[in-house]
């Protein structure tokens, strides 16, 4: 089995399942409650599928008031709660336990208000990321953070994980695009944090809540910044003979004062798999590929691409494909967008998410290959190069005994390497259970205890998503 231990579920709570379910039913009605084992099983895992546990019950409230009543009751009964959006967390953030109630926000997915003059949308937490952009698209607006999972993942999950996306180089991540939340604390208190204004009048509690991994409260509504779409966007694709050249090219583009909306990197193994799957026309004779996207009017794009091409040539770029039409743009993005799906067809994979100082890129890539080779595992690298957020995909075969453990071991070594070179364990996916036991590689106990004191401020009984983020040993309180 896998490495990461979960605490033993509380048998006394499990024994009270039907009583607890009946009390929840009284609050949310039949439509809001899932008790049968078959149906609960749908909630046993998230996108970190190696870990699973069937929850005690699943409750799907339809209003903030219902969320409040549910939490108040479960707080009094001291039953743990796992908030859940779409369950796409790659870190096991939404992984339940057998003694916990999953609180899903899927029935709260409406757009409540679109205010174009003030550039803010008010939405319920269960809305998908893409649905926000779709709702405001008729006015040529969009919501900027765009995780690759945006078709499925919810704004509630994005807020909990402070999710990023391909375009965050220019637009920032969730925390930079969030204006306010309505959140229910574990004791049932409903709080409004932030609002339609910029910045906080007091402590930046909004900044603190964003990225708190479902441990502070259940977000039921959010106010997000919406932006006007750029006039146009086009990518250009470059091939390089080495990771060094590609890395130096990225650094030089930024140093020239050009901030593209996205700079995506793929290494040779990734290119091969994506090309075989998507037939995007990627060059197969290069070691590294960069997709650089810029925005603006046609003329502005041409001017910026000309500058970028100049830089890339200086760094020995061999292949260049400048998109001139919408169709050519789509072709360049096609392989990248389907990359994870393509990988999934050839192997099981674990998607790592460390960030490194971009100057250390070539050296880190070499070491990552060494680590995986030593464990007898394949590796492909696809990532956001502009900000150093790596996504090494460790390839393994779940059906071979011991391979998952090897992959986890290799993953841990890669993340430690990221920390060693001055980076961090996770750039956008969150700690969850996956990186929980590595936290002391990045922080010391004093750092973690200070974070834990904040957990206690919001959830004194540690009932919300309790077994995540902090190593189980050495906690201040739980």
């Amino acid at each position: 089995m896998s490495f990461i231990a979960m605490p033993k579920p509380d048998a006394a709570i499990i024994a009270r399942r039907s009583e607890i379910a009946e009390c929840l039913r009284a609050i949310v009605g039949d439509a809001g409650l899932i008790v049968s084992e078959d149906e609960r099983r749908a909630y046993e895992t998230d996108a970190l599928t190696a870990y699973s546990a069937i929850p005690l019950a699943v409750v799907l409230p339809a209003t903030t008031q219902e969320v409040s009543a549910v939490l108040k009751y479960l707080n009094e009964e001291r039953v743990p709660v796992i908030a859940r959006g779409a369950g796409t967390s790659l870190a096991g953030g939404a992984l339940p336990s057998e003694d916990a109630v999953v609180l899903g926000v899927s029935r709260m997915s409406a757009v409540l208000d679109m205010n174009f003059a003030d550039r803010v949308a008010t939405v319920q937490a269960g809305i998908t990321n893409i649905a926000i952009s779709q709702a405001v698209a008729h006015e040529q607006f969009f919501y900027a953070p765009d995780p690759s999972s945006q078709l499925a993942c919810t704004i509630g999950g994005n807020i909990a994980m402070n999710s990023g996306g391909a375009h965050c180089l220019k637009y920032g991540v969730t925390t930079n695009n969030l204006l306010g939340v309505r959140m229910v604390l574990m004791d049932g208190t409903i709080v409004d944090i932030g609002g339609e204004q910029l910045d906080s009048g007091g402590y930046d509690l909004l900044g603190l809540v964003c990225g708190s991994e479902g441990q502070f409260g259940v977000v039921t509504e959010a106010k997000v910044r919406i932006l006007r779409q750029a006039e146009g966007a086009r990518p250009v694709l470059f091939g390089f003979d080495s990771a060094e050249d590609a890395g130096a090219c990225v650094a030089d583009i930024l140093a020239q004062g050009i901030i593209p909306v996205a700079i995506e990197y793929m290494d040779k193994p990734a290119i091969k798999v994506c090309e075989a799957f998507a037939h995007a026309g990627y060059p197969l004779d290069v070691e590294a590929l960069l997709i650089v996207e810029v925005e603006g009017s046609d003329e502005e794009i041409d001017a910026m691409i000309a500058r970028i091409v100049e830089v890339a040539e200086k760094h020995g770029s061999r292949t260049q494909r400048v998109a001139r039409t919408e169709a050519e743009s789509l072709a360049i993005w096609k392989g990248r967008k389907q990359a994870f799906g393509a990988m999934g067809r050839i192997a099981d994979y674990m998607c790592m998410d460390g960030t490194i100082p971009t100057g250390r890129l070539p050296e880190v890539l070499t070491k990552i290959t060494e680590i995986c080779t030593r464990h007898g595992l394949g590796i492909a690298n696809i990532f956001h190069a502009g900000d150093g957020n790596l996504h090494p995909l460790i390839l393994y075969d779940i059906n071979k005994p011991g391979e998952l453990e090897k992959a986890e071991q290799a993953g841990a070594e890669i993340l430690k390497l990221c920390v060693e070179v001055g980076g961090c364990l996770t750039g956008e996916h969150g700690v969850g259970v996956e990186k929980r036991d590595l936290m002391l590689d990045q922080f010391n106990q004093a750092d973690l205890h200070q974070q834990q004191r904040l957990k206690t401020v919001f959830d004194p009984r540690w009932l919300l998503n309790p077994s995540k983020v902090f190593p189980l040993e050495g906690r201040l309180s739980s």
Partner: protein
Amino acid sequence: MSTSVVKKAAGLLEPRDEAQVITAVNDARASGAPLEIAGGSTKRSIGRPMQTAATLTTHRLSGITLYEPSELVIGAKAGTPLKAIEKELAKNRQRLAFEPIDYRKVLGSDGEPTIGAVAAANLSGPRRIYAGAARDALIGVRMVTGRGEAIKSGGRVMKNVTGYDLVKLSAGSWGTLGVLTEVTLKVLPMPETETTLVFEGLGDRQAIACLSAGLGSPFEVAGAAHLPAGIDGTAKTLLRIEGFAEQMTYRSGELKTLLRRHGVPALLAGEASQALWLKVRDAEFFAGEDTALWRVSMMPSRGPEIGAAAASAGGRVFYDWGGGLVWAAMPAGNDAGASALRSAVAGNGHATLIRAPESIRAAVDVFQPEQPAVAALSRAVKDAFDPDHILNPGRMFAGA
């Protein structure tokens, strides 16, 4: 056994390293003698008056610790003068994109603002609407909490969600949670050039509508202010764009067309544009007065309501952030305009008293009072960092 902290004069602590900060905080805790935390002391008069036994200044914790232009990151000890950071960045044609206000003009203070205080006060300027505030650029902090513990959060990379974001929490905490000892910030390239469109003679509502249309355009407006008549001569409505030279002609042309119903704007380029935005950034129009100065933030389209409420209480305003930030200069008597402004804000935003005599800052809430449930969280956050209320006690809120 404690490292002795250099003491220049009675009541002034000037630690030279983190260990000395820890000692100073622990000594203060042990003796129950709270500390005022200062950088260059230029913003000392912002906040409620405090009873402290000594002042701890970070100005000897100085120096750039990291600068990687190609990674767009700079790190410095907290007491490093902002000026030194900006100078170093300019060598590589980079800058702090959030355009931190220099409060010396309106506060009549002198000294050098430090980078730690830029973070602790979550400063920003007109570019806030496009590039964020200090909170958005800040990616890593080291601090000594009121428990006398050195902790870190964040780091030196742009994307980092490892653990809770204490970086954001420390931005805008005004030295009440910890003494920042080192900060790391994201920087951006300086644009090649800038241009400002200046519309003249618009009333407040029309001006805000004009700014809003500009901000809702694809032309990346990076400054949107309105100076009503009497602030800087005739009424001026300003929209700033930045970028490559070839972009300026195109974008200013498009904006002119888009905003034509508001008139024909004059164009200011280069240094003339820069000079005007410096005045907006620093609220210089209200420098050298003895009015009470407020900084009010709410939904941009409600800006003119705040303006009207200020006017009926005898005040004058100008607008930044497309209307989302109102600078209000109010008569300094009575409550200095607190109730007029705060009832106009009506809980959907915040009004902060930036400049007022000490007696007024003692009598009215300097920071916006919070909803009871949020205030309870804020108090508990303070207690989690500084249980004995040793650091800047009461500066933001009474009893915290």
